[in-house]
Every structure is written in C-alpha cells, then in structure tokens.
C-alpha cells in the first residue's frame, strides 16, 4: 500500500555520550553475539533478550559461573513481540548447528501469546518461567499474586529505566505526538520501578519517567529475583 509522509524516529536514535550508554543502545538495536565458535564440552548457550544482558553477565561473573555463552536478541523487540518467537527459533537452530547440546531461553512470554512456548517445545528447549521479565525479577509467584491489586501499573526494570526515552517515549511515538500520552496511559495510575541494583541515577531516571507520563511513582528493590536461581541451576 501507500507510505505516509511522516518519518518515524527509531528507538535508540538519540545521541549517547558515553561507552556504557552506547552499549545499552547496542543491546537495544542489535542485541549481542558471542564469538563464532563451536560449543565446548559442558557449555550452555543462553539465548536472551538484550534487556537482560547486563543482569545475566553480572550474576554469572559474581558467582564465577563461566560455562555459559550468552547471545541476545535486540531489546527493541519488546515493542514488536510478534517477531520474538521466530527470532528465538533462528538463534536456537544456529546454536544447535554450532554443537550446543544445552540451550536455555531467557525470555518470558513477553506478549507472544504462547508462540514462544510453541517454538521452545518444538525445538526441545526450556525457557525461564513467567509472563514478563519484570515478573521474574519481582518473583513470578509474588508478581502474579499482586496482579489484580496492581492493575494500572507500568513496570520499569533497570534496563527500562535507562531506555525509557527510546523504548517507551519515542518507541510509542510520544516525541512526535505527546498528546497521545493521555490516550496510551489513560488507565494507568502509577509507575513501579522494580530495581535490580541500588543506583540513584536510575532511581532518578525512573522517577522522571513517571513524571513525564503523569503517573505516581514507587520504587521497589527486587534484586535479580528468580533469574539468579535459574542461572545457578544451569551450572
């Protein structure tokens, strides 16, 4: 069909002044690829969302777990979940072709409506339990138990607090049409920042995000939640 005149600014297109920010942008746009090498005995391939890369690497490093090879898909798929399942399938098949016998998917359902589970089942691979990454940071059981009373909550994690502008503000076109904010978030009442780390800069960013959305703000420290246990069990 016809293309409109309007140009859409892509997520992560803003200027990023430092290396850390550039890495975040890379995780958002391109994901992360491990060096192309055949699997070593005992190694496990972790296929994850780019939004989890830092946390996975931090947990593995802190525990001296060095049997895992990490590959991440671009975090921007968060806004296009219909593409996640097939993108994961490609990664799984690539890992199998490189000789990985142990593969684990570090994606929650993430709005795929069960499509990711179907791919995992078909490929004989397991994934981390839960509907969203913020659910397993919070602890899936705790998160699900609170769902009804927390209706109308927008959750941020460390990654989403850092990338709020790219993933949510620009990702939903609010930079071009700020008036859409009140339509998009009409039934939201607050932002809850589920913090993986104690970082005042991220706390401030999350608070600013809530202000920009016109929502109340709450910070809740979760640490890595279920993620640490899952990674530990793979060692």
């Amino acid at each position, binding site marked *: *069909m*016809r*293309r*409109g*005149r*309007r140009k*859409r600014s892509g997520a992560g297109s803003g200027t990023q002044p430092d290396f850390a920010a550039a890495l975040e942008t890379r995780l958002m746009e391109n994901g992360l690829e491990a060096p192309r090498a055949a699997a070593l005995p005992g190694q496990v391939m972790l296929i994850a969302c780019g939004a989890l890369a830092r946390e996975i690497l931090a947990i593995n490093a802190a525990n001296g777990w060095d049997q895992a090879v990490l590959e991440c898909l671009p975090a921007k798929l968060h*806004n*296009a*979940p*219909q593409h996640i399942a097939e993108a994961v399938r490609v990664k799984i098949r690539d890992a199998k072709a490189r000789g990985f016998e142990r593969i684990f998917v570090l994606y929650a*359902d993430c*709005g*795929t*409506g*069960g*499509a990711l589970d179907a791919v995992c089942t078909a490929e004989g691979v397991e994934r981390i339990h839960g*509907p969203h990454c913020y659910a397993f940071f919070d602890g899936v059981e705790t998160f*699900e138990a609170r*769902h*009804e009373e927390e*209706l*109308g909550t927008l959750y941020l994690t460390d990654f989403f607090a850092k990338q709020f502008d790219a993933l949510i503000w620009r*990702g*939903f*076109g*609010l930079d*071009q*049409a700020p*008036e*859409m904010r009140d*339509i*998009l978030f*009409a*039934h*939201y009442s607050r932002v809850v920042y589920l913090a993986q780390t104690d970082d005042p800069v991220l706390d401030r960013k999350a608070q600013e995000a809530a202000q920009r959305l016109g929502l109340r703000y709450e910070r809740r420290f979760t640490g890595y939640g279920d993620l640490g246990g899952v990674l530990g069990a793979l060692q």
Partner: protein
Amino acid sequence: MADEEDEIILSELNDDELVLQMHDDLYDGLKDEISEGVNILLGRGWTPYDVLTKALVEGMRIVGIDFRDGILFVPEVLLAANAMKSGMHILRPLLAETGAPKQGKMVIGTVKGDIHDIGKNLVGMMMEGAGFDVVDLGINNPVENYIEAIEKEDADILGMSALLTTTMPYMKVVIDEMTAKGIRENYIVLVGGAPLNEEFGKAIGADAYCRDAAVAVETAKEFMEHRKHNQTA
C-alpha cells in the same frame, strides 16, 4: 519554502481529490485536517454515512493493511485512530439523526485484569462506521458484565479484547459461561488483541479471531449475513 509549496488547501480540492487526501491525512494521523475534511464534505451535501464509509473507514482500512504488512507500527496506527476519532466526533450525532443503515448490535469490552483499550476502541469506531450499534463496556470486565450486557442489549455480537498473555485466557471463561447458560449459540463471538492468534480463537470456542479492526468489521458483516440468511431460510 518547500512546506509552503506543498501546502494543500483542502477546500480547493474536488470531492474525489479530497477523499484521497483524507485517506493520506488519516494515514499521517492529522486529526485537525480530518475534522476539516469531514466538515467540508458535509458542507457539500454529503451524507454523514458516505463521509464515514468513503473517507474514514476506507482510510483506516488502508492503515490496517499497512500495519499488517509491517509498513506502519503501533504509534502510527494510534495516531491514525486518534484522527479517525476526531472525525467520528463530528459524525456520530449526525449519523444518529439521519438513520444510517444498521447492520446489527455489538457488545464489546476488554477482559478482566486488563486495562488496555486502544485496539478495542478502534474496533468499536470501525464497527460504528460500518453501521453497527456498539455498546462499549470499557476495561477490566468480569464475565457477569458481558453476560448481562449481551442479554440486556439483545446483541448480535460479543467482542472481547486482551493485550496481555496473562489475561487472554479469560475469554474462555466468558465463552464457557455462555455455553453453561445455554446461550452461546445465540451470539457471534469475536476475539482480538495483540498476543492472540487464530489458533487461540478456535481453541477457546470463539467464532473468529480478528487480527485488526478492519478484519473485525469484515468478519462481523460476514457472520451477520450468514445469520440473516439462516433466519430467513
């Protein structure tokens, strides 16, 4: 300078050009231009129903196709829907006065535990545009709301929407309750929402899964034709 050269005066376009321009303006999410275009066509003696179907609904159909094909993304569709809403704001009272042809009645709502309503609102607008009476139950609806509304409104169609993987199974709760009450076959049940697919729609016992608002309208029309045919046979 370029902008000045490109500026289009809507009132100087003939009807055909204006309708095509309105399709473009919907596509670009320009709500002020859509309001202006609607008023111009009405001022030229167009019926509200023709303005709605030829300018707005057709424009949104194009938006729906390009969303399906990955040319447009969610923000653009939201802006287009917002532009359509501005046109509907003008047309809705006029449509009620002029008695546009009626296709049937739909009760629509987002399921319990889910507060997302943009897609549902768009379906509601497009269904109105196609001549359906739409009763919108809003968000976070338990099964009782749906059952009460379809019976009270004597609806033909029940539409359910969900954006979350965690809330979409609730649609089955509603359909199962309709079956338990022996009223399932009295209604056409259409379901939609980002994480759903056709397989899910079939698995929960819906009549159809609708990928987008334009598909919802076409599907509803087809089922209503079939229903009318069966009633007269």
